């Protein structure tokens, strides 16, 4: 490998590989790729390529490797941690033209797809046969399966059905050296190290998935959804604990606080019970008899915890009405605040009441409003930190509150990210969760795949350049503003 070159000098070769229409050099067009769903971080990519085949991806990566040029993989660009933030000195490899569903094998309960295939399209292809693809991130109408693999995406129903890593049987990847490697397939447990498990969630730092074999699940016989309104968050929290303690495993348990409800009401008139300090959405799926029995149990537990109104839905339209407020919540806060930060942290479920109380204190002390929307079943918080970006210093104060919420998660034994990923956004927070030795070991894995360090550099793991000489020790505020693409969250 020679010294890194300007990616612009590779354009003729990139055109030869991807065709003229597969290479974007125009500055205005490149600028449309300058950020992913986390718009605060932006950088115009040196060159954008849109390959259509695995062979093209491999050739592009080999070209990058030969010239020491970094590359950044990108799917639909809906990520929320800046994982697909481009590099001016690098090539952005966009998989959105690799969008074929190659096979739907119902008997083997799997589908083989290209990385640019939209998440929901997998379910659409399987639905006529009575099957579906379980991971359902909120952005599932636009996000790509390749991006889901990079981020190990979850979704509201991962409480019961798991994350992307639990639903991928096989991968074809292009390594950072441009080699095409098949891992797994329709047969599970291929001999050797579980490189599929290591690759999923690696945020584009171990290569690019070019073909993905995903598991399909049989659609449940019955799905029922319960909306329960409580006077306060404590009451809702007690209901969640009671449901778990009773041995019920719903497919989803979602919670919203008064401010989030207010926002959703303003935006989509979801018609949640008025006067609710908290609403809980509990969804059950499975054999009809099980679902009905558990539904009655959950309803009783909610009433016992203080629920003053219960609504139940068992057909898709009714369910959609219940989910409408929840699904629109992130975008909806735009109605009650000019700007906001979406945080993503996790705490052990039993720590939820304590952490929510501490967030309320933080909010009261700082005068920064925080709306809470979260996956209560697995302790995954998405506090929305609201501020007015026209006021000087407001963004910084909001960022401080957002960062303090992450500190709370770590303090309670949780995680700095449950589903949005580390990316560029939280790389400097990694040392708060892991020791230097833990991170060194992770770097070993990265180096095994990418000895030259060209695959999505400066993402996921902290670097001195990104985080200062003492990575992770925050010396100033870390202002992040997520807005504009809220409907994708």
């Amino acid at each position, binding site marked *: 490998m020679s010294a890194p070159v300007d990616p612009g000098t590779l354009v003729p070769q990139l055109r030869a590989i991807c065709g003229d229409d597969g290479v974007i050099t125009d500055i205005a067009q490149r600028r449309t790729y300058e950020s992913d769903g986390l718009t605060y971080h932006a950088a115009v990519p040196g060159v954008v390529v849109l390959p259509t085949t695995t062979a093209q991806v491999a050739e592009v990566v080999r070209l990058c490797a030969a010239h020491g040029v970094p590359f950044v993989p990108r799917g639909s660009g809906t990520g929320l941690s800046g994982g697909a933030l481009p590099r001016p000195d690098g090539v952005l490899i966009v998989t959105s033209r690799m969008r074929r569903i190659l096979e739907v094998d119902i008997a083997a309960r799997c589908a083989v797809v290209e990385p640019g295939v939209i998440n929901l399209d997998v379910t659409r292809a399987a639905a006529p046969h009575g099957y579906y693809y379980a991971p359902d991130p909120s952005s599932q109408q636009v996000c790509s399966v390749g991006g889901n693999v990079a*981020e190990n995406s979850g979704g509201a129903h991962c409480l019961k059905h798991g994350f992307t890593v639990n639903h991928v049987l096989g991968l074809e990847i292009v390594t950072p050296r441009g080699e095409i490697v098949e891992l797994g397939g329709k047969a*599970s447990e291929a001999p050797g190290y579980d490189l599929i498990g290591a690759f999923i*969630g690696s945020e584009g730092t171990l290569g690019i998935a070019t073909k993905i074999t995903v598991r399909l699940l049989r659609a*449940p016989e019955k799905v029922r959804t319960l909306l329960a309104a409580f006077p306060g968050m404590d009451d809702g929290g007690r209901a969640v604990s009671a449901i778990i303690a009773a041995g019920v*495993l719903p497919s989803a348990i979602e919670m919203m606080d008064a401010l989030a409800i207010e926002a959703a009401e303003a935006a989509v008139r979801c018609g949640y019970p008025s006067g609710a300090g908290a609403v809980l959405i509990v969804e059950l799926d499975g054999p009809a008899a099980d679902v009905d029995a558990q539904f009655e149990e959950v309803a009783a537990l909610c009433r016992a915890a203080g629920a003053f109104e219960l609504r139940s839905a068992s057909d898709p339209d009714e369910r959609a009405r219940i989910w409408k407020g929840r699904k629109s919540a992130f975008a909806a806060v735009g109605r009650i605040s000019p700007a906001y930060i979406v945080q993503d942290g996790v705490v052990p479920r039993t720590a939820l009441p304590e952490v929510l109380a501490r967030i309320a204190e933080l909010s009261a002390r700082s005068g920064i409003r925080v709306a809470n929307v979260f996956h209560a079943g697995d302790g995954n918080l998405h506090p929305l930190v609201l501020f007015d970006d026209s006021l000087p210093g407001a963004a910084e104060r909001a960022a401080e509150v957002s960062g303090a919420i992450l500190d709370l998660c770590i303090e309670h*034994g949780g995680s700095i990210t*449950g589903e949005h990923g580390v990316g560029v956004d939280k790389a400097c927070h990694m040392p708060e*969760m892991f020791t230097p030795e833990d991170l060194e070991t992770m770097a070993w894995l990265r180096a095994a795949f990418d*000895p030259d360090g060209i695959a999505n550099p400066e993402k996921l793991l902290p670097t001195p350049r990104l985080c200062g000489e003492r990575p992770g020790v925050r010396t100033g505020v870390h202002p992040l503003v997520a807005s504009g693409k809220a409907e994708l969250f």
Partner: protein
Amino acid sequence: MSGEQGAMAGPGASASRRGGDPRAVLEEVRDAIPLRSGAGDDAVGGVVPALVAAPPDAAAVAKLLAVSARHGLTVVARGNGTKLDWGRPPRRCDLLVDTGALNRIEHASGDLVVRAEAGAGLAELDAVLARAGQRLVVDPVVPGSSLGGVVATGLSGPRRALYGPLRDLIIGMTVVRADGVTVRSGGAVVKNVAGYDLGKLHTGAFGTLGLITSVTLRLHPVPSAARHVWARTTDPATARGWILALLDSQTVPSAVEVDWPVEGPIWVQVLLEGAEDGIAARARDVADLLEGAEAAEEAPPGWGVLPGRAGDTLLKLTCAPPDLVAAVQTLRTATERAGVPVAVRGSAGAGVVHAAVPADADPVAVHGAVSAARAALPRGWLTVPRAGADLLAAGLDPWGEVPGLPLMRAVKDRFDPRNLLSPGRFVDGI
């Protein structure tokens, strides 16, 4: 003598004395960690370790490995020792680390999470969890296994068909690296995407990337009712039809097993779990998909354990569920031609079954049968997790051809560049 020389010892090196006298080099830890000479029943796949250490806690494991690594000693971990003859024998075993004293269990019942040390037995774990009405959905395929042992061998049982394999239940892991440094990955919460999930790499790695000292796992509530339903057929096509019909049904079986003995009919066995109210109706729905179905609350004989007898040669066949019956037939054809009996049992629902061949079968014939079956099956489908010395001497490669090997080697080279951890036990001599 330099320890480094020992570390360079290649395949076929004898079992001791390449890295200096292990007893002498470990003198500095003797006060804190009980040490003794290895004996015949400590053997790892026939290789008797020079020394056996029983560190009292995880910190002692780290200390032990730091010292042993400095002197280039090779290390194998042992839990309850039920699968030490799995994989290839280590090229060398200077030090066997017995994790028996690492048996602490911290059950966070409200979070449906448990953190347990590697030496904890699955049975002990189960007893603790059951008090809170919870369970770790890991079937004891090999009775008496320790948690560390099942994780290191990546062994899952019948319920994997619904709950996923063991690796899907692991949310965090603490490992002592080859250089004796203790590191963590994952965490204590189920939903977590911070950093690489290194626990996945260690699961099923046969101790070649690190010594697992504790594992954090997600738990499930114990269902209020369970029902076993099964049927028998002598026709493989019928068995295949049943399996696919069960998987295509909405009865949500926790397990769909196949038990295909040497002689006699094929058994297709279903486990249903869930609410008491619904279990009878679901059992009827399942019975309707079979012919001559029987149902009981108790499991049918042989449920959830390996086929054959202790000490048998053990094969593992993995494929997509629709291909399973044909793949087993391919294997049986190969073994019949070689005059070797084979018994098959495992998860038809997940497409992972084990096959047992008597330990005293002619090794040349068994090797021939495995080679013939491998030639007829896609690569990676047939491995031999447990093979006796004769069979290995006959030239059998227990792991067969492994896709992705260069990447696996690259990982091993980063994690254990001197090949100190279970050298040779894993794929391609890793």
